[in-house]
């Protein structure tokens, strides 16, 4: 049985899709049979980040409405074996998602895969609630700023009450904090919240810290998940994150301000 992991945040633009793509890629690179599902119906993005936008024929809504089979809609990743993408529909909206339909799709997928990664839309409405409803684990993506922390807090409240595990009184959804766009220099200057403050407010286990990096934007625009960019700090940080998701004890990196090494990494990355 696969583990269902939802990547969520409440706030938009914090790096949910980037993280879902990077984590799914990382899991597949570790030999886990993984499928990543785009729940952002109407604002389809995951296929762009995964670089498979030209190969989309059918989507999640077609499958839910019985117009296509799962195997027709799933796109096999060209770079990694074991990785599949189930895109969202761009022409429909989130009302086309039904709880029963989502459950049926997830039930089928959990039989064949090791990990099902659900890329949640922003907000706390239907799309986001359905993305998290069947989850076993949640990766809550948070930027080091007050509004993002507040929205993550709200999402954590929903994870504790509006999920199948909560409603059926099973073990709660395992919550992980993923801090993205962390810039140790700006944290030092007091422009950004620091790691400890975020952890204190949200009081959940930290699964990873992704530094602010040029590699992320480049990866998005090229349609290559940043996990493949092993020379970049962000790529390495996602690999660490995946290892921790798999239960390994990896020390935290990239959270301290080191002027020289950071600059050399940035320039080193920028020239490639």
């Amino acid at each position, binding site marked *: 049985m696969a583990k269902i992991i939802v990547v969520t945040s409440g706030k938009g633009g914090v790096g949910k899709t980037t993280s879902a793509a990077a984590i799914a890629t990382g899991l597949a690179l570790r030999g886990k049979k993984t499928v990543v599902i785009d729940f952002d119906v109407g604002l389809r993005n995951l296929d762009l980040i995964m670089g498979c936008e030209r190969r989309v024929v059918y989507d999640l809504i077609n499958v839910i409405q019985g117009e296509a089979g799962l195997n027709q809609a799933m796109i096999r990743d060209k770079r990694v074996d074991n990785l599949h993408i189930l895109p969202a529909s761009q022409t429909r909206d989130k009302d086309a998602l039904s709880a029963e339909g989502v459950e049926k799709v997830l039930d089928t997928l959990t039989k064949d895969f090791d990990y099902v990664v659900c890329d949640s839309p922003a907000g706390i409405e239907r799309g986001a609630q359905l993305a998290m409803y069947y989850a076993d684990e949640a990766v809550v993506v948070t930027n080091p700023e007050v509004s993002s922390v507040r929205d993550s*807090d*709200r999402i954590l409240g929903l994870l504790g009450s509006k999920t199948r595990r909560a409603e059926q009184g099973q073990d709660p959804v395992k919550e992980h904090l993923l801090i993205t766009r962390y810039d140790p220099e700006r944290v030092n200057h007091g422009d950004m919240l620091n790691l400890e403050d975020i952890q204190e407010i949200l009081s959940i286990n930290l699964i990873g810290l992704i530094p602010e990096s040029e590699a992320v934007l480049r990866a998005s625009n090229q349609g290559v998940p940043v996990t493949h960019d092993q020379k970049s700090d962000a790529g390495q940080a996602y690999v660490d994150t995946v290892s921790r998701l798999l239960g390994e004890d990896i020390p935290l990196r990239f959270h301290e301000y080191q002027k020289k090494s950071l600059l050399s990494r940035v320039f080193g990355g920028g020239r490639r």
Partner: protein
Amino acid sequence: MSLNVDRAGTAFSFKGGMLPMTVMELTSADPEQIREQLAGKVSQSPAFFQHTPVVLSVEKLAEPHLALERICAVCRAHKLLPVAVRGGADPVKQSAWALGLGWFPPQEERVRNLESVSRSLPEEELPSPAPAGMAPVANRIHRGTVRSGQQVSAAEGDLIVLGSVNAGAEVLAGGNVHVYGALRGRALAGIHGDREAGIFCHELHAELLSLAGNYKRLEDIDPQLLGTAVQVRLNDDQLAIAPLV
């Protein structure tokens, strides 16, 4: 009361008890209308609907026959557990029993009975109040963080939060509010007007403090007190914030 028979042979013993109980006073007998309004209430305060036992009071309904089974089903679907019915005509009593629910006489009648009983008793023999060790009011302990958008309340008693109350969250109590963590959200104590109620927390960053309807916003709080452990009391309609110890 007990006969002291050998312990191993005793399967149970009867004890008198006074438990706090929520009464759901019906003003409509239409299950559909009840369903709609319950759904609204559940989304407002989901924490309250955790298989909460309720007594259905039908005293305000004139109908001799009620769709009791459907009303109970609506309640259960929203995680309320009807345990008994209060009031209503004989058919209501019969269908309550048929559904495995208890039946209580209407409230007025019962009060009158009690009064007449107590009047006939000599002073010394007045029935003692609830046995010691049993809280007469419903205090509530919440374990863990109260998160943004969540509302936790103890309508009658004290609310104790073993964790922090985050910004955008709200905690309410008829009595005192204790927060054994950081208080960053809104805290309202004495919501039914108890002027003796207080708020106690280990780290004050509250958006709003309110005691019996009098309030202070974060802006009005002395910045020196922020981040410290404090107690908040009502002093001549003014909230007085002082160090906890």
